[in-house]
């Protein structure tokens, strides 16, 4: 099967050699065109149709978009998304950083390694299992949190955490407490390890205390990690689905409604596929804008990033 002549740089390239790179790209393009690009353009087209996924299929122009933008639901869902993004940002900047600092201060290498492994552990448990465990912890009747409160004699605090519109949102945010296991912790910890030991030595000689060191050395040198993590926190905040779908389905009422739930329900509960496609297009545009802002923010503050 060896056809060496085509490899020689001194010959004119044959058709075979010209075509070769494209053959290597054939599989990836078959996959992506079939399952990403065609659906993507289809979604744009279908967003101008009234379509139930079957026999009802008529062109209605911009009606899906005008319906969507005049409905209160989209605004509520986007507001909740924003709240999730903010919660994610606060989380990503606090407990993982605290844990990374505490772990970094541990002197024994061995202990560092095993604690890091333990703190990473939840990342390899299926996300659905984590969510279902928290559903049990937060549930109203026989939930763990409520029975702990009962046994401490705090009957007045017992509450259907996920079932009340006052507490549902914060209950969802609570999932995964203390929110250490994850990328943020690994990046902070890796970042601290890569800071030169001489800096810490110098700080010690100068008599800097732990907090001075943290604000003058650690925090500035972890800035690039923090920027990446904030970007990811925003992207993840806009994509929340599983957690809300499994815990509250967006309820009670619209207390935890997010765009992904709205999109899913429009299609699979109400068979409004065209409307659902329009939600997808709007979300796509919003995410593009947010990503562009993020990129700009990242680039402007991190030359050569």
């Amino acid at each position, binding site marked *: 099967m060896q056809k*060496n002549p085509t490899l020689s740089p001194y010959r004119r390239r044959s058709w075979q050699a010209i075509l070769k790179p494209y053959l290597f790209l054939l599989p990836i*393009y078959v996959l992506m065109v079939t399952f990403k690009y065609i659906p993507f353009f*289809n*979604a744009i087209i279908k967003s101008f149709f009234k379509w139930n996924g079957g026999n009802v299929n008529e062109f209605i122009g911009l009606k899906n978009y005008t319906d969507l933008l005049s409905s209160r639901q989209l605004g509520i869902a986007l507001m909740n998304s924003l709240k999730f993004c903010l919660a994610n940002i606060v989380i990503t900047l606090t407990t993982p950083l605290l844990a990374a600092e505490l772990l970094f201060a541990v002197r024994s290498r061995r202990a560092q390694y095993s604690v890091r492994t333990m703190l990473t552990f939840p990342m*390899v448990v*299926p996300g*659905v*299992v984590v969510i279902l465990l928290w559903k049990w912890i937060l549930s109203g009747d026989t939930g763990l949190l409520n029975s702990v409160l009962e046994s401490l004699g705090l009957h007045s605090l017992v509450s259907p955490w996920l079932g009340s519109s006052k507490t549902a949102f914060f209950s969802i945010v609570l999932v995964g407490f203390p929110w250490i296991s994850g990328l943020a912790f690994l990046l902070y910890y890796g970042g601290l390890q890569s800071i030169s030991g001489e800096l810490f030595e110098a700080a010690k000689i100068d008599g800097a205390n732990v907090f001075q060191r943290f604000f003058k050395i650690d925090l500035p040198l972890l800035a690039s990690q923090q920027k990446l993590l904030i970007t990811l926190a925003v992207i993840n905040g806009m994509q929340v689905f599983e957690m809300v*779908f499994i815990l509250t389905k967006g309820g009670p009422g619209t207390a935890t409604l997010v765009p992904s739930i709205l999109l899913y329900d429009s299609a699979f509960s109400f068979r409004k596929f065209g409307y659902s496609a329009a939600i997808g297009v709007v979300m*796509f545009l919003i995410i593009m804008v947010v990503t562009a802002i993020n990129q700009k923010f990242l680039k402007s503050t991190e030359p050569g990033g």
Partner: protein
Amino acid sequence: MERRNKRPVDAGAVMSRLLLGLLVALTLLPFYLMLINSFKNETGIVQAPFSLPLPPEVETYAKAWPQVVRPMLNSLLVTAAIIIITCLVSLLAAYAFARFSFFLKEALYFGVIALLMIPGFVLLIPQFIQIVNLGMFDTYWALILVPAAYQVAMGTFLLRSSIEGIPLSLFEAATIDGAGDRHTLKYIVLPMSKPILATVIIMTGLSSWNNYIWPLVASSSEATSQIAVALTSLVRDTYYGKGVLFAGYVCASLPIILLFSFSSKYFIEGLSQGAVKG
């Protein structure tokens, strides 16, 4: 090494150890509770959720196992297929982008990574419609090929930079020795890309095994049901109650936990690398 010097123990250090210990305990608590309560019946769980299961109920596992074994095998098959397709397809594409120059190269590269940042749910409905049109609804093809179409973008991105990092002299030596693309891929690219391939395999494997939203819409029968979705609809009886659910969760978590305990170094590197490069 200089930080190993013995210093007098001060109160701050003790406090920070205690705080770290507390954070570790809180992080692991839900999983500890899952494990101990998987050996209890409903009454035991409600009355004493924190105490050890003495004597342990094993019947919970007998009730959970038949419900999770089929979805687990299905997920295993789908995960393995997604990993193989992702590695092969991205390796070929990355090789072409890294080694050849051709017309429209960067445009085609952009075409591969452009949709990387689109969240999955935006394409959820159109992809669902596409697999219905292709007659793939409720088949393994849909469960494998659609997630693979996501993973190959990241795979190509990571592998391209790794292949471009291989010294040119190695490729030249191979060409002089008369190696074709197949041999170059097998004896140079593959061995030199092992670390980044490990990253791709771990990321792809974890997200396939844990995938919830796509099987939720693309699969409807027991024959194709996937573990993450099956876990949300486990059937319990009145006596064992949540004990059965916890037993099911433990079964579903075990395969990856076992892999993790044997290769946590790769996992932790893989998990952080994927995101940094992305």
